[in-house]
């Protein structure tokens, strides 16, 4: 990929990081009804990293790749933890309550589907891109 292409991809990932930060704020700090440190603290760290990563990628800062790597790695770790937690919770609830009903199944699937693109797929793609881009940038 040439320099112009990398700049465009960098811009796309930068905006994607900012969108992710906004969605985490919306989901955790607006959507959830109570404050709980085990969720709020990692979410805050993630938001801060994603903001820094997004802005640095858009600005093509020298430290952008490092910041983006840390942000993507944390997002991936938290995303995997979230999806694992949701899947285990759904399994537990279906064990306790039996059938979860069409609505319940739909709701859980939608929540997982909303988390997957931003907190699993995007970080994976970003990590791969950063990995591919790193040697050429060096």
């Amino acid at each position, binding site marked *: 990929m040439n320099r112009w292409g990398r700049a465009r991809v960098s811009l796309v990932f930068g905006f994607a990081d900012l969108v992710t930060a906004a969605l985490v704020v919306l989901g955790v700090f607006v959507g959830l*009804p109570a404050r709980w440190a085990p969720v709020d603290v990692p979410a805050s760290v993630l938001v801060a990293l994603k903001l820094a990563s997004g802005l640095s990628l858009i600005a093509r800062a020298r430290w952008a790749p490092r910041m983006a790597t840390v942000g993507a790695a944390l997002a991936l770790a938290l995303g*995997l933890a979230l*999806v*694992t937690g949701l*899947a*285990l919770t*759904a*399994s*537990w*609830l*279906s*064990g*306790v*309550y*039996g*059938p*979860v*009903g*069409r*609505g*319940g199944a*739909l*709701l859980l699937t939608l929540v997982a589907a909303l988390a997957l693109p931003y907190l699993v797929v995007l970080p*994976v793609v970003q*990590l*791969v891109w950063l*990995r*591919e881009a790193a040697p050429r940038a060096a």
Partner: protein
Amino acid sequence: MSVRVLAWGLGAWVLVCAVACWTVHRTFSLPEGRALPGVVIASLWEKGELVGRAVIARAGDPDGALDASLVSHAAATLVYESVVAEGPVVMHPDAALALSFVAGRDGVMATFDGRTEYVTPDDLLARQAYGKEIQWPAVGLRAGVDVPVLWALLSDRFGVPVYDLSRRVRLCRIRVVRSIPGDPPAPGAAVGVFTNRDVREAAFAAGRFLARGVNAEGHFRYLIDAPTNRTLAGYDWPRHAGATYYLAQVAALSGDAEVGSAALRAAGWMRDHAVTHCGAARCIGSERVVDVGATSLAVVAFVEIARTKLDPTYALVVPALTAFLRDQQRPDGDFMHEYDRESQRPIDIQLIYYTGEAALALSRAHALLGDARDVEAASRALAYLVGPGWSFFGSRYYFGEEHWTCQAMDDLWERSPNPAALDFCLRWHAFGRRVQYAAGDTPYDAEGAYGVGPLVPPQLTPAGSRSEAALATLDVARKAGVDEGELGPLEAQIRRSIAMLLRHQFHPGPRHLLADPAAVEGAMPASEVDWQLRIDFVQHTGGALIRWLGRSSADP
């Protein structure tokens, strides 16, 4: 990290996650047969209080202590709760413990220092401990066993402080099946089995329950805690008016003089104490800011009382009230839902239900008194409700709880038919069928109720109010010549809800867990496990039963 490592890592995660999910599901599910054999918890209940308990091997086995309790509590009810399954619970955090029990079905087996005690579903129901721990008002979620109450019960059973108990006790959940010797089997109003006689009896019992709660002045027992029969705080004019309307309907259908007298007392209280000046017109309310809903439902009640000749003089009160409603109407057909009596100005805000209620009220008033301005205003309101009032991106796929629109459409059909309203109502009920529970969708007795998940036992009133609207829609659809084949699913939907309401009405209800069963006979609880009784629960569910009896294809 190389791409290959990342890919392998993700693959491993998917595999581990799947195995973990399967293991968790299997560990916490309750297949019958895994239970302790021969555990039956025999309890003696008197006026909602537990007065004796024994754990026996088989229902009917003798137990000295229990037999002695039976002698000293001759009026007590013996109840067997047979343990049919047992499983683990997650004890931390409290939210997980709270959600480890299916409301109304599961209890607790606790082992502490080699001793075992039980907290049964009846123990928890008697204290109304289900659906309490986790509350998320924004999405209407109330779920989970009340953990402090659970610990208090266990502490009482063991005679050990909660602190000590919580550190060393081992908890399991138990699934029980309840039986009461000598009691007839619970009414199994399965779909298609109930008769119009069952429905009529249930509707009249609901009316008698409401009537018993009207005091000499005309005030309702607005909210009752069924297990203790305590009247709880709170009051509301729209619901007073709605309950009065229901009493008038039952009085007319049943000819029950006591119900008629209660209807007149409740209406009299409203007429004499709540009719007030709102500018040049009259409205219902006692606060500085009054709402359209109270006046609308008062009109509906007064018209019903006059129409059914309970007291024709109530027709005289109606014109001043409908004048207020018309004054509140905006040019687009919607209403300004509040009015400031001090500044004598309408407040142009909108609240759920009130426009539909106003449309129905104006239609009913026109049917009684023939004022053309009323039917014109009602028609405009209906056109707004099914047009601009429900028009946004996605409005074809999502509907709310508003259940007066279709009743107004039905009421107006002969005088001012609105095919767009019929189309709207048919689509709303088609949406409703998507979120109506079928048998086996939840662990509860919920076939015919509405909801979206298994955590919360479904509320019963929405099934009543949606059925009122669905029956109104069915009636109009038949008049409009909609193909019977298309209406079959709608009628089946209503039938499921009516059957469900019959099963859950306190008729007689869980008598052994109630301090005064006779006081709440005929009531409709909020849900299978929430036994607060508010007057509008009966109004809406009873209203559905009455509409069922009056439907155009009513069985003999």
